[in-house]
């Protein structure tokens, strides 16, 4: 939640004090912190500099999309946002693909090299070509703070409530996110008091439509990160791929991203943005459902070529939906709010990503543990023996565990690990079905929530809803 606060603050600061300035502060700060992390002599030094890098990145990221928005007219946004989505998405997937091999062959410090090169090239280009913009036209700082606070309420409440389902009340994450929701709600009330009658005066969308758009951004990142992370785990744990091979095996996602980005750019003017978002979500849904069916049917024997094709389909759907979503959302918000609008979209995406890695992981644990226990139950084991078997499984998963079937212990370990792999595949299939359900809910919200009148307004080239 601290990162989300930085993202929203970055958006507000950029709009008020200059988007180029905040982009450069974020990028230079990030570079310095990354260099400090590489030179770290102690874990504390490393963790602090990594956290600092994350905070500076949180300032820079929303400025990037805002500057792109301010560089192109509304009707020409699809190509630049398609390129932006492809570049950043490919980098994120590429990082997971290459970071494993880089660490394996060159050591952990080398993992930072691609990031350092990219930020240096980006900085040179930004210094030379990005112009300064800050246009608080018709808005006061209170307007920015109010919109940021409202976003904080939505994101923190959604995140807190979802985490509540996972971790009950014991988790500090739940309390911190609910606290952010409370503070944001307090800011909103303060805002309404100092500017009576101005609440969302300049909002281009009704509040609920903005909430749907934010939820769409969350869902896109949630589904994509969840799909990539857990597919990687499936290949590593169930299909027994070496971690480096499992990383490289995610590459078709990037190929799909490029194809989807080109498709999105070419659809410019031919298809309303809302329909493109729905088409992209449909492709992602088909890919997720087919992956779930394949995993549940064939478990460890599912062919990689099939998974690769589905990854490409998923990547294409994500790029199509994401580019159209950014063009629709940022193209419809007032230019003076470009930084904050972009920050809202970044924050939504970040929350979606965190939910994907925590909630879906919790579901895998829950589904998998239950399936594993059921398998042991059917063998007639007593509850005490089931607990012992789970502890033995944790031991059997250690790298030094004996998995030689010629000995009694090795045979037992091998059988437990085989059971575990089957249960993991079932749990992964279940998690994919949950993700599919969330995509269906999101598509339904987009279709009905944005409403035919608003959809027509948004679809019309050059129209500025308000």
């Amino acid at each position: 939640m601290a990162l989300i606060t930085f993202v929203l603050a970055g958006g507000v600061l950029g709009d008020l004090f200059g988007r180029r300035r905040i982009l450069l502060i974020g990028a230079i700060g990030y570079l310095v912190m990354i260099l400090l992390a590489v030179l770290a002599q102690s874990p504390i030094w490393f963790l602090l500099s990594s956290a600092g890098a994350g905070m500076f990145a949180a300032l820079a990221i929303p400025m990037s999309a805002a500057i792109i928005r301010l560089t192109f007219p509304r009707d020409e946004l699809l190509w630049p946002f398609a390129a932006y989505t492809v570049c950043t998405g490919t980098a994120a997937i590429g990082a997971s693909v290459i970071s494993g091999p880089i660490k394996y062959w060159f050591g952990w410090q080398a993992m930072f090299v691609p990031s350092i090169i990219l930020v240096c090239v980006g900085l040179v280009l930004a210094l030379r070509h990005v112009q300064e913009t800050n246009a608080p036209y018709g808005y006061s700082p209170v307007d920015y703070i109010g919109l940021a606070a409202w976003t904080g309420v939505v994101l923190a409440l959604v995140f807190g409530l979802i985490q509540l389902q996972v971790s009950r009340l014991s988790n500090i994450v739940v309390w911190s996110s609910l606290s952010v929701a409370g503070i944001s709600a307090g800011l909103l009330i303060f805002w309404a008091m100092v500017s009576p009658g101005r609440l969302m005066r300049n909002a281009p969308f009704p509040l609920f439509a903005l909430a749907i758009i934010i939820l769409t951004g969350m869902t896109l990142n949630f589904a994509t990160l969840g799909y990539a992370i857990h597919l990687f785990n499936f290949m590593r744990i169930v299909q027994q791929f070496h971690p480096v091979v499992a990383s490289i095996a995610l590459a078709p996602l990037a190929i799909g991203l490029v194809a989807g980005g080109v498709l999105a750019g070419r659809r410019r003017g031919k298809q309303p943005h809302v329909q493109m978002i729905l088409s992209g979500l449909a492709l992602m849904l088909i890919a997720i459902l087919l992956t779930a069916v394949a995993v549940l049917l064939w478990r460890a024997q599912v062919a990689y070529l099939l998974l690769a094709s589905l990854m490409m389909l998923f990547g294409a759907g994500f790029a199509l939906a994401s580019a159209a979503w950014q063009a629709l959302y940022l193209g419809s918000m007032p230019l003076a709010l470009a930084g904050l609008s972009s920050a809202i979209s970044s924050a939504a995406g970040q929350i979606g990503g965190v939910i994907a890695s925590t909630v879906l992981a919790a579901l895998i644990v829950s589904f998998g543990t239950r399936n594993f226990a059921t398998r042991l139950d059917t063998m007639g084991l007593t509850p005490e023996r089931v607990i012992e078997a789970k502890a033995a499984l944790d031991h059997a998963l250690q790298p030094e565990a004996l998995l030689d079937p010629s000995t009694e212990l090795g045979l037992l370990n091998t059988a437990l690990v085989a059971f575990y792999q089957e249960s993991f595949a079932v749990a992964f299939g279940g998690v994919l079905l949950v993700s599919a359900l969330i995509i269906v809910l999101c598509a339904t919200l987009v279709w009905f929530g944005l409403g035919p009148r608003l959809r027509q307004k948004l679809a019309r080239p050059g129209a500025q809803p308000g």
Partner: protein
Amino acid sequence: MEESLTATLPTPIAPAEALSVEQKRVRWLVVAACALITSASLIQPPLHQLVAPFPPTAFNAGWTRF
């Protein structure tokens, strides 16, 4: 509305057909700069790849503990 707002910006947002080849190139270099800076921050190595706080236990691959 777009015109009135862009008037406060240093460079009005012109459509592609009103730009020279050089201006179009600069616009795409801006996209490249922004995309590279964002990409750089997205590929910061995840902490779980650098430090393994929990031993790998069943189903969570040692990344998170619930």
